[in-house]
């Protein structure tokens, strides 16, 4: 039976009506009409649906909507604001530095997996501002890119790390 849940997504509070076991993904995609988190496997194997929950990357395809009440959900769309808050910027940039770096590297092929790639890389750089190649590979290993753009994603993450460091200098 449907219940009402109050969830906070990208800083905004929403009341949504859903069965308690409804995966957060379907609420984000169909009720809030967000294009960032998207279905890939429904099994937490690929990272297509990743969001940040209280700053930690989670798979929204296996996270029920009832489990995120009282928590802060950040999607791809909310990353620039999330970044601005973390770095105490006056206003959010147009793109999170990871998004900008993906664009600068022209990293994507089809781009479908880039929701998860960008969300995960943003979490990584928040925890480790200067990751090595090995650390990047280990952190990102749960995210699949079927087009094989991994080398470009690694280059983009390193570029974003440099950009964040330089912005603080």
């Amino acid at each position: 039976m449907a219940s009402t849940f109050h969830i906070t997504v990208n800083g905004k509070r929403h009341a949504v009506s859903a069965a308690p076991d409804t995966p957060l993904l379907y609420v984000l995609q169909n009720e809030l009409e967000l294009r960032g988190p998207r279905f890939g496997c429904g099994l937490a194997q690929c990272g297509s649906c990743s969001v940040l929950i209280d700053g930690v990357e989670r798979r929204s395809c296996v996270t029920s909507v009832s489990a995120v009440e009282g928590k802060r959900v950040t999607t791809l769309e909310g990353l620039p604001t999330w970044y601005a808050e973390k770095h105490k910027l006056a206003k959010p940039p147009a793109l999170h530095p990871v998004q900008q770096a993906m664009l600068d590297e022209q990293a994507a092929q089809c781009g479908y997996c880039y929701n998860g790639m960008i969300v995960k890389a943003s979490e990584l750089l928040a925890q480790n501002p200067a990751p090595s190649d090995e650390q990047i590979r280990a952190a990102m290993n749960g995210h699949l890119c079927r087009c094989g753009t991994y080398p470009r994603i690694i280059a983009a993450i390193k570029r974003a790390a440099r950009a964040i460091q330089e912005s603080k200098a």
Partner: protein
Amino acid sequence: MSAAPTPSLGRREFLVAGGAVVVGFSLAARTDLARGAVPARGAKAGPPDPKQIDTWLAINADNTATLYIGFVELGQGTTTALPQIAAEELDLTLDQIKTVQTDTNVTPSQGGTYSSSSIARGGPQVRTAAAEVRQALLKLASEHLGVPAEQLGVSAGIVTAARMSRNVTYGELVGGKLFEIPFTGSAPLKSPADYKIVGIRAPRKDMPDKVAGRYAYVQHQRLPGMLHGRVVRPRGQRAYGVGAKVVAIDEKSIASIAGARVLRKGDFVAVVSASEWDAVRAARDLKVTWDDSPSLPAFDELYAHMRAGETQDTVVLDKGSAADAFDKAAHRSSFSGRCPYQAHATFAPNCALADVRSDSALVMCSSQDVYGVRRTLAALLGLGEDKVRVQYCDGSGTYGHSCYDDVALAAALMSELAGAPVRVQFMRADEHGWDPFGPAHVGEARAAADANGKIVAYEYQGWHHHWSLVETSQQLALGSAPGEWPNLVSQQVSPQNCGAQYAIANRRLVDHRLSTAKYFRAGWLRSPLDLSMAFVSEQAIDDLAFRVGTDPYEFRRRNMTDERWLGVLDAAAKAAGWQLRVGRVAPSGEIAAGRGIGLGTHLASWGGAVAEVEVNTRTGGVAVKHLYGAIDAGLVVNPAIVEAQITGQLVQTASRMLFEEVTFDEKGVTSLDWASYPVIRFEDCPSVTPVVVQRLNEPYSGAGEEVMAAAAAAIANAFFDATGKRMHEFPFTPRRVLAALAGA
């Protein structure tokens, strides 16, 4: 490219929105404009007449141009590269070229987006159309400015007369109106030496929306009043000829999901609900008993089954006398290889939306061939083709014929049965389990060289089956017979890949075609059969080099005369810093390192690759450390996009050689997700070096799949260089590697 479908983006709207500037010129468009008779694009069924220039290009009032192309964006950059060609010939900037979504009511029929042919086939069409539009525009400008056309110059769509201050823009000349002139293909073309936009590394037009999360994939499309649907099928396909047979359906099993409905037509079973989660749960919980009779060979007996199967045999090529030359030669090599079924395994399961009415249908899907699937949909629904409209929206990368047509048919059937618009997305197991796989292959190659190391004989025999013609949804709903695609080069032993790289006097190629119905449904998977044939053929060549006692790069060079093949071989070897040597380097400890080289292509273009691998002789683990890949695709319109394509091809090839294999038992497919069908991940990804061999004065050819065969061969040959053993089967799983290392 505008991501949301724009079904009525017609000239009428440009006129209303843009306020056309009417100037004195003599084309028929003016009269039509006066009558208000400019038809809205998309109002009637296509394809629009390819012999009319208006079908290809429109000049808008805001001094931009809209390019109508029938090739779809798959992430391969078509909607950037084709506009580069148009901008070049039109003397517009790249930003001034717009494209629209591929749509059977709007865009021309250029055939499907396959065989990496968007630039090879579409490029010349766009180029000549753009040149002809420019010629017509200059004629108008000449009349408008009262200056001979030869004295006019154009920059960014502004036409200026030499030594005059007056100018006029394309938009002012024709903005929003039709040319109504035939497309003759006769306008003079720019010389490549003068190119300013073709050949540059322009950024992809679709990239900003993709990284920002604004891009609307087909999975994001919605129709008013739509239901969410899911198909209900056995977990994993059976033999193609068997399809799937319902024994019983227990609808009470989903009685607790109030909003869900079961739909059925023949053996096509589905559920719909207003709530997507309810549809997902209903499809998961609905209890259907399927006929579970064994229909397939046992997994471990597949290749023996194929090799012993009844076949239709074709001699694809027979030059000289290969058997005689082989028998007499000083050095001989025979090599056999076994290559698995592999899945497209699209990252996002395919998705489609359909609104089927009694007299019309609208279908939104990711088909690589919108006109082709329109024909199939019309037959399925009993409607005329002109009553069916198909709009293309990108899904995730597909790399060939995945389930995009199957899901489009499923959506149409469900909309027809439900009497409402329906959005269908496959679940992961549907996509992995019911994919038209790249067919398995058994190859046997023989090659021989004379005492001087010259290759004198080459033979290749291949066993495989053709692609399936009937989509699963249709087969289940209508009980359609399991048809096969007719003979096409991509389903046969390839003259391009099997020995054509070398100058060989005696060459024989034989194709052995098995019945698809006894195996799996199949389709074109990026570089169809090429990885398999190169795996076998190029190992035979490599083995021959070893027997002759020559470095494998040097051996190939000595046997090649074609400068295009030599160009990619040299480019890959140079990038890799290849050092000539004979014999392998002794392994240090349990890690054996090696390098290998290979040549191959798909249908056109030329690919060369070098691989560096490390083999753990204790665990059987193989690491591809670095891949170098060179493509010669003639004139490359956008080298940055081709480099990206090469990168993807090299990584995907490593994935296919090390990890990918469809598994099954006698009842059906068992590799149904990313755990049971692993693909390469970050930690196993090689470094890559893409090399574009630019040929400004050669015709465009494909660049989306032409280095995979070479890379597959290079990896296999590197394994030999590292270990002194040859792999006869891929993927290179630890079990197979340890068996090969233990072998004689």
